[in-house]
């Protein structure tokens, strides 16, 4: 058990390092897209450690407690994440619902701490984040329902292995509509444009982050990197057939994340009610159609 826990924290650390370096590389790629040179690839590390080295301010015990809870919750979630078929801390316990709901603890911690700062922009940002969550989660969960119903398991490695056993017939191909929906949902989850409403610097001055600086912000950055790791690798395992070894995982992970970034960078951001409208229009419909086709009619390519 001790070994498993250590592996779990190893995964969390690995996720942090991977996502932070990839984030830096992506900033460079985006820089090129915007006719710039771009920062160093390890810039994200510098930023985070810089923040940790600063002397921050605090608005009371809840302000700090929320941040600790946020980071703790996310680290705990990451420990359940499988990297490949064999590198998984708690085999059989990597239940899909754990990721959806345990991530929420971290989010709740952050939301609580942000609102606890007493800044209205933070509260508005939290409101928008929750509303966005309400928007993308329902279509996404319906697609997941389809997958779980098809595979008969909600274990992430189980689903990945199912795809590999089916001759690498990924759900990306088997459930094309569901894949499109989930990709949009992934963009919503990662808070990428056009669903970036809750950061929106020009409207609410970076939303929940408005009062953070120094170590709290640094910890939230770490939390954010790990969250992105969880969400993107969830996507890799669910739709891209998981990974037999770590190289394939890295490749798929980088591809998905870079694609999300490239797409998001030529878009502006929606208003918050447009996000809700957007997700409850076509993606929800597509997800239901996909579910009906796959579950009731059994038409899976």
């Amino acid at each position, binding site marked *: 058990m001790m070994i498993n826990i250590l592996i779990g924290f190893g995964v969390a650390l690995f996720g942090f390092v991977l996502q932070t370096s990839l984030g830096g590389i992506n900033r460079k790629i985006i820089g090129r897209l915007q006719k710039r040179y771009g920062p160093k690839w390890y810039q994200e590390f510098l930023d985070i450690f810089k923040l940790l080295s600063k002397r921050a301010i605090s608005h009371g015990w809840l302000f700090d407690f929320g941040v600790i809870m946020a980071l703790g919750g996310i680290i705990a979630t990451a420990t359940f994440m499988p990297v490949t078929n064999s590198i998984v801390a708690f085999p059989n*316990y990597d239940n899909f619902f754990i990721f959806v709901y345990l991530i929420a603890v971290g989010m709740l911690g952050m939301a609580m701490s942000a609102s606890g700062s*007493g800044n209205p922009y933070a509260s508005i940002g939290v409101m928008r984040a929750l509303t966005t969550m309400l928007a993308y*989660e329902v279509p996404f969960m319906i697609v997941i329902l389809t997958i779980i119903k098809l595979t008969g398991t909600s274990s992430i490695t189980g689903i990945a292995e199912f795809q590999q056993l089916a001759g690498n017939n990924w759900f990306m191909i088997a459930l094309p509509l569901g894949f499109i929906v989930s990709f949009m949902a992934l963009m919503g989850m990662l808070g990428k444009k056009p669903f970036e409403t809750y950061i929106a610097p020009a409207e609410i001055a970076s939303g929940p982050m408005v009062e953070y600086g120094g170590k709290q912000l640094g910890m939230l950055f770490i939390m954010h990197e790990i969250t992105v790791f969880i969400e993107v690798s969830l996507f890799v395992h669910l739709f891209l057939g998981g990974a037999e070894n770590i190289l394939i995982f890295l490749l798929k992970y980088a591809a998905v994340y870079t694609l999300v970034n490239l797409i998001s960078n030529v878009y502006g951001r929606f208003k918050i009610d447009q996000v809700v409208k957007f997700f409850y229009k076509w993606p929800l419909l597509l997800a239901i159609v996909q579910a009906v086709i796959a579950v009731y009619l059994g038409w899976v390519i």
Partner: protein
Amino acid sequence: MASLELLLIFTLISGVIAYLVGKVHPKTGSILTIIVSGIVFASLAYFGLNEQLLTKVSYLPYISFIQTPLAIFFGVLVSFVFFMVSFFNPYFIDKYTYKAVYSLLYLLSLAGIIGIFFTDNFMTLFFFFELVVWSSLFLIPLGRDEEVSVWYFGFSVFGSFALLSAILLMQSVTGTFDITTGLQAVSGFNRLSVFILLLIAAFAKLGAFPLHYWLPKVLTDSPDPVTSIFSGGLEKLGAFIAVLGLVKLVPTGFFIDVMDMYLTHYILAILGSLTIIGGTVMAIRQDDAKKLLAYSSMSNGGYIIVALSLGSSAGISGGLYHIIAHAIASTAAFLAIGAVARQTNTTKMSELGGMLHKMPITYMVYLIAIISMAGIPPMGGFISKWLIFQGVINKGLILVAAATFFGSIGSFLYVFRPLAALFLGQELPQFKETIKEAPIVMLIPMVILSLLNIVTGVYPTNILAYINTLLVDLNIVQLDITRWTIVGTNGTLNPALIAVMFALGVFIAFIIFISLKKSRKVELMDTYTAANFIYTEELLHYSVDFYAPIERLYEPYIHFMKKFYQALANKVREVGALVKYYIFTSKPEVATFFIMLVIAILLWGDLV
């Protein structure tokens, strides 16, 4: 007190004593309610869980008891809620006009509850059902508004009549009032009728769509402890009847192969889904914290209906577990709001703010309660929601699943709102000086409930094991559990492991936090305002129309149910005005009495 009969008589008599004492000294009377409900809970829990309750009846006529796991399950749970809430009674008794009556009614309801759950006869059940309706009916107007009790009365009578018709129909077909044999014997089209009638009664009591209209009104306007009772306790009567109708009654109707369930059950699941969506959507737009939680109770009632109508072991055990988890969490949440209301005399979120700084323990209680209500690990709500999702996904119910997912995320939205608007944010000047933490006696139940929230989330297998014995009683396949894990149809859950990992994660985060440079403490008003100066806390507290953008999307569509019921009420009022002119006075209590008298006379023939 191992004998149910003695327990019942004891509760009734002490109710009268509490009334008499309360006439002299109201506070003592209310303290008596704590003691009595404590004794009732202790007896039921101790003897019930060891299956040592005595069901022999020697003093009361026409009444017989039976000891089933289902009865013990509900009895222990509801009496526990009564016990917890009774701690609040001494602090709120001063706010009522009829102080002594309150204690009497409180204990009468408790007695009724015991009767309902432990009887084996449908007529007795109906009698106690009416006892609870009456006593709770008079509890409501102790708060503010008499109109809501009329609404409650209307829906309750509707439910009661449905229940009565179901009973009489069943009796006419099978010739017995016995619950178990009666429900199994009824067949054919009558079975469907009984099913529908029972479910109407259950829906009316549970406040499920489309019979939900009274619930938010009652829960908002009744006194704070009564609200907790309703949400955690009395509403569960509906769940009990739903179990009778959905699980005990043999299902009937068209069987849908692809979903592996009966059409009737599927329709119920859809109605439950509508309840979930309606409750969620309405809860999001409330300004009153109590009303918000009231709609959340409605939404959770929908979960219970969905879960019970699934019929699979995961579904039913999830539903039963949800009854526990929701009872604990919502009682805790209501008590926390009640504690705030006692200090500030309001539950409007737009008038409050920053209570965290003066009431940290109440805040933690509320936080834990809402984590459970939102179904986030490591709290009890997660286990039940996980089980329900297992059931729903296994059956492949897409629309129902969409509704449950929506409700699950939506609950995150609405429970966060009181947290942000009421406890967090700027500390308003009018509360800076006067507000203190709630008294220790009020904190006791809240803390106990919070601990239970955590226990149900970390170590649920004990309770699930009990639910398994219950499932045996109901002829359903048991849930596969081990000491630490729950094995669902498509996955394994280890709640303790999640909790441990969460604790470790928080520990690591804490180590990171304290090893870094210490932060500088600043005032709450020293905050980013785009470099402008501001001195009024109120202007910096975001609490009005919290979810304005999403509210705007559905605002035009929400009033159709309200319009329907208002139109109905107007029609009834027109007829009623005619009757009232001759017979009744303006008091709803009197009207109730008359109607009950009529019902009693009608029933007399059937009873003998």
